[in-house]
């Protein structure tokens, strides 16, 4: 370690040396260092390259506001790399590997820096003006090159192996920021009995308290106070302390999002520990003690490595014992800069001069100047910067002096290896503003401060523009007590005192006075996005007036730091150049996140199989054992087909279909939605809801029901059984179960409150085994007791209770295959056992389990629709041939009125038909279109589309269902299905291909 490491440093542990690497070179630092402080300690000032011009950049700041020093940290391999991390926030650990970004071949020599030479060609918005010729060149030539040049780091290179946690939390008072104000607020609130959460984005709590100069005893009063306060905090059972936790978003109704970084600072995180955790905190009251951010000054050459915020230099010195240079020039735009100069001076750093850039005499506190001069520090008043020099690190600054008339005279060039600047401090109002709290312009301080809050929230200390530690303590205390009181608690007196020497942090935002002549040197406003004063002025020259336009045209404030250091300066420059006041220019919107948060915490546990619940039926394992292939239907896994050794899907489905038509098949129908509709109003409820009439449905009988929405379109369907006078068992489609119940509840609770009827979902109560085929009765009969299965006693659509293998059973005589069929409903726990029992009983009839695909083929042969396949939300019952289901005499049902709208009755609607290809071997594509004539070219006149298409085993040929304009009247006609290889002629038929009389059903 070099001479850059001085004495002191409250955060580092000099007994623990930590080795790490940056751009392939090894360095060492101390435990407690950030990557920034450790590199500075090693004399490394060049940390990155700028976005657009690839200019060499060093550290501007010491905290989360850092715009320049963005690095990629790689942990092990590319999958664990993270781009664009601020070196100021990366805590070093043994073996840390970091790389600079956006440079090639190296940070020191970057070819991209030619952009800087060509920069006159790349002013703000240049890309809107060029690259338009020839027409396709943008996408083919220019854009790829621009893209390759843009971007900062590289995206991680593989699936992230780490895990991310989430939690919800509630508290009385959430305090954001653990500086003086925040700690005082937390102590006061928690001391009053409030449940408090205190978070700070840094690993070390204390905020500005950590930046105070040590007194002769080796500690500062602030540090002593902090130590006691932290001990008190730790002892409070009702306080949760969250270091390394950024409050990144303020959401409605006092919910805040916090991002806790758990392992990134550790050399070897314990296995299984999540990398980060998302906290969603609902707080009764919020205290924002987020402090203030120092503003840079805008002058030519202000982006060289070594040009730094004054407070950052102080932070590096006091927290890490790191000297940012040995010959320092301080540009003072506020009194606090004197404090920094004096601190550095006391720390043994040579101060070449303090150049006070303020030109209004009343702005400068004589005491500050006197203090500096007492230490023999040269003070240049009414100074300005004419330029700087130094390629990879600043080596001199040329100063000027501004005369009363505004003219600038040269005041010489000072050699320096660090140029510190302070334009004053901007309160961190981000979260307050995100919550939609108002802001107020404080003209004398030149900053926006929080005004009326929109939530139960208040800002304290530097975050609301207060100066001074003691003020922050008192303000925080007061806020903590007020918040506790607002939670209904009795505030418990609390007071804190620290005496320190402080200087005013008030400054005036904006650019430094510039000499009249144009200099080629750029004065940066937004470091990361390479936005200069001239860019802002160009935007205004081009008529961009609104701050929102200027932001977007120049990209100022749009980089990963979101303008933390640049925002107010940009505003001031815009105001100055357009003869407006800053509040007239106005602010752009503060949005979450305060600092970037990883996608991982927001995705959390929704990962892999747990991305969504996997719903399995009670017979899932049985199907798995039989080798089923499953398909996703909603959240359910449904057995799709059951391939036997060597079979493909087509062969398996053909075999399954054959079995059902000739012998017997069994099918897991458990996923169908089931709703029990019970109560004296049940019949009337069903009458009002479904198109069908339910009055005549006897107990023990079922009926196919059709449900519309009030707009008249088919919404769902299913078999409905009447189990008792006042009890219906309604089935729905698998995907429709939840939304049908929701719709029913809507009508029940809000429209038909006159009906005494209640709805209960029983989807999961029952396991349902469909046994279908000519031998179905023979298969199940031996297992069943207590009910007569004969066609006479249990005809098609009859329902009976009984037992099967001793288990209670609800038996439906229904068929979705066109064969003799039963659906055995048993309580879910029995499902697997009964499935196996049926299968065993069916062995002698060669029973075959079939899946959803065979079910689809079988029902299509019969012309039964599937809601969502034949229908798409634009079909009336008549369109799909279901007019017969409508209870004609009913005065009303949901959707009835809409069916009489003109377009619903007009001819030209698509209707359900069957299609047979001229060549029986040709299988139409589902979704293929239909035309009336052959040989059309696009755009064709389309008159329909194929909704279902299968190879029918029973018919020995392909079949299809289609929705065709006026289809029923076209039966017998030849239509065409235009395919890329030519038109396929098809014949229109009725949609029922198999057993149109339904004789088999009634077997």
């Amino acid at each position, binding site marked *: 370690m070099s001479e850059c490491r001085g004495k002191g440093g409250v955060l580092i542990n000099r007994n623990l040396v930590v080795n790490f690497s940056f751009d392939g070179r090894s360095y060492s630092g101390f435990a407690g260092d950030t990557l920034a402080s450790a590199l500075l300690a090693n004399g490394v000032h060049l940390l990155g390259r700028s976005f657009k011009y690839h200019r060499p950049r060093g550290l501007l700041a010491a905290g989360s506001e850092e715009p320049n020093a963005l690095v990629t940290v790689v942990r092990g391999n590319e999958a664990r790399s993270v781009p664009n991390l601020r070196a100021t926030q990366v805590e070093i650990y043994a073996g840390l590997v970091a790389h600079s970004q956006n440079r090639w071949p190296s940070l020191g020599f970057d070819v991209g820096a030619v952009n800087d030479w060509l920069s006159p060609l790349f002013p703000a918005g240049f890309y809107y003006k060029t690259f338009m010729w020839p027409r396709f060149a943008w996408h083919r030539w220019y854009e790829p090159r621009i893209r390759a040049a843009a971007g900062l780091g590289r995206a991680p290179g593989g699936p992230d192996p780490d895990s991310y946690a989430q939690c919800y939390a509630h508290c009385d008072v959430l305090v954001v920021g653990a500086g003086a104000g925040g700690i005082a607020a937390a102590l006061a609130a928690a001391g009053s009995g409030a449940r408090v959460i205190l978070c700070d984005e840094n690993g070390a709590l204390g905020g500005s308290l950590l930046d105070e100069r040590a007194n002769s005893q080796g500690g500062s009063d602030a540090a002593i106070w902090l130590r006691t306060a932290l001990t008190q905090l730790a002892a409070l059972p009702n306080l949760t302390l969250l270091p390394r936790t950024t409050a990144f978003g303020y959401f409605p*109704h006092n919910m805040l999002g916090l991002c806790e970084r758990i392992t990134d600072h550790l050399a070897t995180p314990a296995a299984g520990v999540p990398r980060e955790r998302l906290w*969603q905190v609902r707080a009764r009251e919020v205290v924002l003690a987020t402090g203030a951010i120092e503003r840079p000054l805008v002058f030519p050459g202000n982006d060289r490595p070594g040009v730094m915020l004054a407070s950052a230099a102080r932070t590096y010195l006091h927290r890490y014992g790191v000297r940012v240079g040995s010959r320092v020039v301080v540009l003072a735009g506020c009194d606090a800069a004197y404090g920094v100069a004096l601190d550095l001076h006391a720390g043994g750093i040579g101060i070449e001069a303090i150049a006070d850039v303020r030109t209004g005499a009343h702005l400068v506190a004589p005491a500050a100047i006197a203090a500096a001069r007492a230490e023999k520090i040269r003070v240049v008043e009414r100074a300005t910067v004419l330029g700087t020099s130094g390629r990879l690190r600043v080596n001199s600054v040329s100063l000027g002096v501004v005369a009363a008339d505004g003219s600038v005279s040269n005041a010489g060039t000072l050699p320096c290896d660090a140029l510190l600047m302070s334009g004053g401090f901007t309160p961190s109002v981000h979260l307050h503003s995100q919550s939609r709290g108002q802001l107020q312009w404080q003209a004398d301080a030149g900053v926006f401060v929080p005004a009326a809050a929109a939530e139960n929230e208040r800002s304290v200390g530097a975050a609301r523009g207060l100066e001074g530690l003691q003020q922050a303590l008192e303000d925080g205390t007061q806020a903590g007590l007020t918040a506790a009181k607002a939670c209904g608690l009795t505030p418990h007196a609390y007071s804190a005192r620290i005496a320190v020497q402080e200087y005013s942090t008030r400054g005036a935002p904006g650019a430094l006075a510039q000499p009249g002549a144009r200099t080629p040197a750029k004065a940066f406003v937004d470091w990361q996005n390479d936005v200069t004063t001239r860019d802002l002025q160009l935007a205004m020259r081009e008529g961009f007036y609104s701050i929102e336009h200027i932001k977007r045209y120049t990209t100022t404030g749009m980089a990963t730091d979101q303008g933390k250091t640049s925002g107010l300066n940009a505003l001031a420059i815009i105001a100055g150049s357009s003869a407006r006041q800053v509040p007239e220019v106005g602010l752009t919107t503060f949005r979450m996140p305060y600092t970037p948060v990883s996608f991982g915490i927001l995705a959390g546990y929704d990962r892999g199989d747990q991305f969504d619940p996997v719903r399995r039926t009670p017979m899932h394992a049985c199907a798995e054992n039989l080798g089923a292939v499953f398909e996703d239907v909603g959240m359910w896994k449904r057995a799709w087909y059951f391939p036997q050794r060597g079979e493909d899907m087509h062969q398996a489905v053909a075999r399954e279909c054959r079995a059902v038509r000739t012998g017997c098949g069994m099918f897991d129908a458990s996923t169908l939605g089931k709703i029990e509709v019970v109560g004296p109003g049940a019949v009337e409820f069903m009458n009002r809801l479904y198109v069908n009439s339910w009055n005549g449905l006897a107990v023990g009988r079922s009926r196919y029901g059709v449900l519309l929405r009030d707009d008249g379109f088919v919404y769902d369907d299913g078999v409905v059984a009447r189990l008792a006078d006042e009890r219906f068992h309604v089935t729905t489609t698998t995907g429709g179960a939840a939304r049908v119940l929701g719709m029913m509840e809507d009508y029940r609770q*809000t429209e038909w409150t006159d009906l005494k009827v209640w709805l209960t979902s029983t989807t999961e109560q029952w396991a349902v085994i469909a046994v279908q085929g000519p031998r179905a009765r023979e298969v199940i009969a031996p297992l069943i007791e207590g009910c007569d299965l004969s066609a006479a006693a249990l005809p098609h659509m009859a329902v009976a209770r009984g037992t099967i293998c001793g288990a209670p059973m609800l038996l439906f005589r229904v068929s979705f295959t066109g064969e003799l069929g039963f659906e055995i409903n048993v309580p879910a726990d029995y499902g697997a056992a009964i499935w196996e029992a049926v299968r065993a009983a069916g062995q002698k009839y060669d029973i075959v389990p079939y899946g959803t695909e065979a079910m689809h083929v079988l029902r299509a042969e019969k012309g039964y629709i599937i809601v969502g396949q034949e229908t798409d939300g634009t079909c009336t019952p008549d369109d799909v041939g279901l007019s017969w289901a409508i209870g004609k005499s009913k*005065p009303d049902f949901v959707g009835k*009125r809409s069916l009489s709208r003109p377009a619903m009755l007009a001819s030209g609607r698509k209707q359900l038909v069957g299609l047979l290809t001229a060549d029986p071997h040709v299988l139409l594509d589902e979704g293929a279109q239909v035309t009336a004539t052959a040989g059309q070219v696009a755009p064709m006149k389309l008159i329909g589309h194929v909704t279902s298409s299968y190879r029918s085993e029973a018919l020995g040929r392909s079949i299809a269902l289609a929705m065709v304009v006026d289809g029923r009247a076209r039966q017998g006609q030849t239509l065409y299905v235009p395919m890329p290889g030519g038109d396929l002629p098809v014949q229109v038929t009725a949609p029922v291909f198999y057993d149109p009389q339904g004789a088999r059903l009634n077997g």
Partner: protein
Amino acid sequence: MLLIHCPYCGDRPELEFSYGGQAHIARPSKPESVTADQWVEFLYLRSNPRGVHAERWRHVRGCARYFNALRDTRTDRFIATYKAGEAPPQQSGSTP
């Protein structure tokens, strides 16, 4: 995530609720006798105000009840929630 006051269960997180659209739109009791314009109004026309909105919510992952709310769509602040069937509470003075 909004915090919504269910008239039956108290303050609950938005995740437990489903939104039910504009409140106080009665389904015509005799739909067959309403005009096309009245029917299209019932089906589709919504006040969609920038300001106070009377709307329905269902505490579907809670007590499962529909209830009504007055919410200011400019701020997402709830002014009141009340049970289905009740009249919206009188708002004092001008809208916030």
